[in-house]
């Protein structure tokens, strides 16, 4: 049920982000979801792509500092309070969310949100028991 996310360490230099997207584009890799967390000095770019292994390889070959992290993708019902309900389930179980970001999805019923949680297995268990749809990796990469 886990999704592999690619993380890239970037200095805050002009054009550095463009170099990442260019590298991926020339390798024919599609970015499915993306989030950038930054400070005044550096940033971490987090990506979900359609071919994780290939992306990891080409980025490293091009001199980027790359890591892999496991996250979960959760389908959030498209109605007011949809996300709040999920956060509530996690909070009740004392599960801490490190960060989260949304998926770029063209159409469909609901939004897909990516969660980075330290206790990943417990979170999957709790969410599934509460009827929340946790999407498997293979499905997410092809969304």
């Amino acid at each position, binding site marked *: 049920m886990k999704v592999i996310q690619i993380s890239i360490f970037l200095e805050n230099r002009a054009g550095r982000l463009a170099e990442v997207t260019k590298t991926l584009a020339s390798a024919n890799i599609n970015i499915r979801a993306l989030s950038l967390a930054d400070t005044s000095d550096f940033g*971490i770019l987090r990506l979900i792509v359609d071919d994780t292994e290939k992306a990891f390889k080409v980025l490293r070959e091009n001199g980027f500092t790359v890591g892999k992290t496991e996250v979960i993708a959760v389908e959030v019902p498209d109605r007011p309070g949809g996300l709040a309900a999920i956060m509530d389930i996690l909070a009740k179980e004392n599960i801490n969310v490190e960060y989260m970001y949304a998926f770029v999805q063209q159409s469909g019923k609901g939004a897909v949100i990516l969660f980075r949680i330290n206790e990943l297995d417990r979170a999957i268990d709790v969410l599934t028991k509460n009827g929340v749809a946790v999407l498997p990796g293979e499905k997410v990469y092809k969304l």
Partner: protein
Amino acid sequence: MIYNDEYETMPREALEAIQLRRLQQTVERVYNTVPFYRKKFDEAGVRPEDIKSLDDLKRLPFTTKQDLRDNYPFGLFAVPMSQIVRIHASSGTTGKPTVVGYTRRDIKTWSELMARALAAAGVSQNDIIHNAYGYGLFTGGLGVHYGAETLGASVIPVSGGNTKRQITIMKDFRPTVLTCTPSYSLHLWEVAQEMGVDFKRDLAIRVGIFGAEPWSERMRQEIEDKLGIDAIDIYGLSEVLGPGVAVECIEAKDGLHIFEDHFIPEIIDPETGEVLPYGETGELVLTTITKEGIPLIRYRTRDISALYKEPCKCGRTMVRMARVTGRTDDMLIVRGVNVFPSQIESVLMQHEEVAPHYVIIVDRQKALDVLEVQVEVTERLFSDEVRKLQELERRIEKDIKETLGISCKVKLVEPKTIERSMGKAKRVIDKRQI
């Protein structure tokens, strides 16, 4: 094992008496035979008979590498050329090389000190030494070679280069001791791996004696783990003798014993020239007290170290110097504090999340010096959480503050973005307009 029990374990008082007598003889001799020293002593207003105690040493002027260059090639020799039996020279990366000459007795002394050094590393006549220090003008190769023969060990004069052949020789001749620079030992390991040769399984090396470049405890760990050997630090410089000025004992591996019956060490503040007490870090200054060919009075080594007087468990009574971590050449003064890039490097080496590639930027903002250390993260990202990376920055800042006594800002940068140079990397950018 102790090669020369009488001298190496001599009570301090007796040792210091010998040092004083030998110092007085040396000062007397250079004053009368080397015009350079006579002029310098006269200018400083000090005469040989003023040296009444070891403490009087500090009245004598320093000798620098520049003095050797100014008297290139043989101007500081204290004996006629007919008594010189060997000449060595240091590579002149900046300016002229420095040239040194040895009399027959100097070679004998050097051989004994190298034999002592090998013995301190646990080497005996039953060992076979793979000597991969370069043979030639550089003192490393021949220095170890003569010491090995004096000790009675078998020496393979393989010298530097042709690494694959070296591995084959190590496999076939089964040497038990490796002597080379610490970085070359890791290179040997890598090439061996590529050839399918495992140091631990296929070779007989059990101890390595490494010197001629600064290294760290972390590097020692790496060498010992990879090669499966004891890694011993040796110190020396061609101007003073060559390898064999000081060595670690295998019992403690904690500081290098200086062979004080032949050298008097001091630690000074490189800015003021003031002699610092035991335990304080500064520039190592050495005076040779038995050398005939080219005696050196208070020679400024430019190497950063400290001296320790505490007794050692090996039984040697000779003082220990801290592992040399860098050179004074690139010393910085920030907010009145002496900062050596090597000190910062040793802090960075303790954090495995960063690579030992860094640049130090000093700037002055509103009349206050500010220090920024940019360091490359390792090639593989170990955390994707901004908070954890910021914590790492704070942790390194704290360690630097504890080591150097001044605060700085640490900034993580991407790998391979800090300029590399094959020689001494340009580690410091000083933007201050003073």
